[in-house]
């Protein structure tokens, strides 16, 4: 694994984020609210990646953490809002508690613990909460049985993508600090694996969004949760 390969993966990931954002913005007003909410993190992701590249180019080390911090906070809040809608606005207190808890951890981590390094603990928190949301959504699917062919449900793909990505990267986020501080690893191999998983996640989400668009064309008023 080389730095060039890692950069290439990052660029493909950025391109796929744009594809996802475009697919979510297509016929924006007639889309379900959760699809619109899921589109935003990818727009923010693209912008933050671009900002990260610019910061790297101009060697502005003091701000390296800022784009990632902005991304993780906004992505978390948007995913939470999307899942809140998907879960029929149930578990309100759980959502509020998890969001407040996460924001507190993220802020403390950003300003106190991991000021000068990657905010990996924040990512761990995000991964845990998104995994919980994803499992709750699958539980809802099993209880409500909304569709005969589950693979035609856009959110099945999106949820699977998020579950697989955050489960796969959870261990990496957990050990990032140990790897960099104790083992002094440059993380290229690990981060390449992260980006490959991210590409897989993006592709699964694109499949889900394609199903949503085809559904939108055949039945413009149908819900697709």
């Amino acid at each position, binding site marked *: 694994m080389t730095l060039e390969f890692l950069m290439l993966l990052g660029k493909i990931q950025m391109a796929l984020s744009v594809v996802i954002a475009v697919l979510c913005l297509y016929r924006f007003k007639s889309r379900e609210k959760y699809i619109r909410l899921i589109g935003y993190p990818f727009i923010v992701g693209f912008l933050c990646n671009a900002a990260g590249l610019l910061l790297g180019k101009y060697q502005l080390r003091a701000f390296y953490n800022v784009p990632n911090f902005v991304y993780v906070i906004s992505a978390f809040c948007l995913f939470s809002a999307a899942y809140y809608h998907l879960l029929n606005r149930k578990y309100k207190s759980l959502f509020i508690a998890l969001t407040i808890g996460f924001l507190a951890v993220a802020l403390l981590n950003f300003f106190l613990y991991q000021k000068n390094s990657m905010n990996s603990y924040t990512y761990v928190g995000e991964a845990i909460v998104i995994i919980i949301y994803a499992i709750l959504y699958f539980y809802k699917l*099993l209880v409500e049985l909304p569709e005969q062919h589950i693979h035609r449900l856009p959110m099945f793909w999106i949820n*699977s993508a998020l*579950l*697989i990505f955050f*489960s796969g990267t959870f261990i990496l986020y957990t*050990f990032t600090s140990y790897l960099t501080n104790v083992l002094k690893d440059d993380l290229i191999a690990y981060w390449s694996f992260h980006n490959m998983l991210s590409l897989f996640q993006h592709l699964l989400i694109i499949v889900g969004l394609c199903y949503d668009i085809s559904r939108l064309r055949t039945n413009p008023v149908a819900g697709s949760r």
Partner: protein
Amino acid sequence: MEQDSTNFPLIFSLLTVGMLIMAGSIVLFVAFYQKKMLQEQFKRKQLELDYQQRMMQASMESEENERRRLAGELHDSIGAMLSTIRVGITTVARQIPDPQSLEQPKQMLDDTIQSVRKISRDLMPSTLEKFGFAQAVKELCERFHATSQVPIQYTEKGELKSFDKNRELMLFRVVQELLNNALKHSQGTLINVMVGSEGEQLLVAVEDNGIGFDAEALHLSTDSGRGLGLFNIENRARLLNAKIEYDKTRSSGSKTTLIVPYEKV
């Protein structure tokens, strides 16, 4: 430290693969279990539907049995008694000096006997049991024509096969209801009734040139009285495994076609 750095990739890989396998298993479990749950739900619904259908069939059969009993009572008991009374009146009329005075009661008695016969026939058409479905429908058309003065044309196509008596009776009730609807609501000046055979299916069509009706609107109607006839027709059709088609393409009038398989499925 060195030990840590050599073992770490292995530990990391195992943990990550473990997490990925867990996530993948959850996705697969949901996909397959959902399918299984849906199959179970479908089976349960099918059983409920079967049960409802059986209940409906039992209720209709008991209704028909009650009608048969009432028709029999009216015809054999009250009808016979009225006929005896008529014979008595005729005998008395021969013995009294002014037989004309009994003409009016005799006429009234004749009307009553006719009414009782009509009610009895409506309750249970003997023609259906004696001569079969086609003849009973033909007779029904003639009777409706006689009472309403609306021309009712009856046509028969192909060679009709006979089928189970209970199913014939159910089908007859459907035609009776369709004709009733056409006369009561269509405001038409001509009604066509067609009974025909097509392969292994019996076709029955009732057509009028009246104002037509919207079957979907009647289904959706919240007025409990509206669409009740249609509801009964569809229930009977379901029990017959028949298909009902409402012609939606016509600009005026209505046409309802019933497609009934000869063999009970």
